[in-house]
């Protein structure tokens, strides 16, 4: 298959879907890493996957149920407070268990379960792209407002309480944004690839970057580069997209080892 065919109309929508996610997920991942909540990303992605399977069982649109499940997971996380890795581990196990048990109930659920593991980017269409673009617009509008508050809350944890705001809304707003993005991503690139996009580029950027804005640029750039390589490689090698993207991101992660700080 030639590169011309890869960027043919058939692949254009999936390509654009993944392109937006490949930039958005690492950027969100920078804040998730700053909050030391990267394990939560896997929990949210896994719960979203369970939502997709559940949607297949109850014959509702899987993506809507996945978004609902992710929003519920984000609300539960906010309710538990900064409970840390224990509660995120429970989310991961719960999502994994529910997804696989659900997948065993129906043939369609089984098919979806496999797709969530391997990623079904090449089968995403206009509906998914609308959702992803809407999320991109919301993120672009919300992040400039969220960013200074998230940084302030991270480095000066008592600031908001000391100023009479014991439960600031920005934490929940960010959690819901991350959860919805991960839900959409899990239905496009698969659970582990979505998690890898949140985890790996920020992990490398945190080692390299000299400044906060450069960290965001590095993370977005690494995510984008890995995505482009994986998109072409998966088609040319006729391999499932999710595992190929994860493999490319793991190669990107080697940059951490090579860098002497």
């Amino acid at each position, binding site marked *: 298959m030639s590169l011309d065919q890869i960027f043919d109309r058939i692949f254009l929508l999936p390509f654009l879907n993944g392109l937006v996610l490949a930039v958005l997920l690492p950027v969100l991942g920078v804040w998730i890493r*700053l909050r*030391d909540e990267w394990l939560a990303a896997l929990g949210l992605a896994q719960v979203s996957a369970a939502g997709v399977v559940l949607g297949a069982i109850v014959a509702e649109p899987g993506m809507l149920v996945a978004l609902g499940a992710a929003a519920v997971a984000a609300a539960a996380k906010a309710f538990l407070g900064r409970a840390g890795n224990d509660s995120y581990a429970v989310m991961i196990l719960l999502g994994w268990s529910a997804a696989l048990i659900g997948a065993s109930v129906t043939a369609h659920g089984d098919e979806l379960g496999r797709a969530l593991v391997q990623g079904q980017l090449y089968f995403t269409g206009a509906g998914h792209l609308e959702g992803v673009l809407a999320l991109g617009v919301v993120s672009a509008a919300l992040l400039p407002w969220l960013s*200074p508050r998230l*940084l*302030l809350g*991270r*480095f*000066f*944890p*008592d*600031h908001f*309480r*000391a*100023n009479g705001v*014991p439960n600031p809304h920005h934490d929940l707003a960010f959690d819901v944004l991350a959860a919805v993005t991960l839900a959409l991503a899990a239905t496009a690139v698969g659970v582990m690839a979505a998690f890898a996009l949140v985890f790996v580029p920020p992990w490398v*950027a*945190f*080692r*390299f*970057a*000299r*400044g*906060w*804005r*450069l*960290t965001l640029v590095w993370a977005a750039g690494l995510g984008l580069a890995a995505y482009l390589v994986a998109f072409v490689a998966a088609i040319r090698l006729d391999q499932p997209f999710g595992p190929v993207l994860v493999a490319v991101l793991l190669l990107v992660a080697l940059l951490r080892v090579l860098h002497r700080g």
Partner: protein
Amino acid sequence: MSPALLEVDALVAGYTGPVVGPVSFRVDGGEIVGLAGSNGSGKSTILGAIIGTARVFSGDVRRREGLRVAIQSQSPVRLAEMPITGLDFLRITGADRHAVPPPLQPLLGKRLDLLSGGQYQLMNVWACLGCAAELVLLDEPTNNMDPRATSSLLDVLRASRENGRGVLVISHEHDFLAEVCNRLVEVRP
């Protein structure tokens, strides 16, 4: 007398049970008040009662309405990797980058994880003192500081009197407090 920024009246505070008090003091604009006492005497519990993380058993904590507060905690958040420069850090609180104390100026372009404990502590203190807050709460600001950094901290605190804000400093170092504070409050468990 103009209303105080902060007024603590016969406060008894703690967590599951009372830890400290009764204690009374006030902080006005343009003055530095020190809470002195040995480790474990309950100084940080008083701070907790002021910001709402500790329980008030009796007495009263009154803050001027709409008071903007900056707080430097006893153990600043320090991540293993912090790709944030000193300048980024000051932007977080909106601290004045043009009036940065001389010892911090060469550090503005450095990542925070490359700073020593004392340098990071001083950066934290300036992030609070250099911002627009009317009341600044400093909990053990001399932690991790060598004599040179402590001397810089004294200069920064003295200069802060001139801009009209109130500062409440908690420290177990009596000499440090005596050197910089307008008034000292002894705290005993």
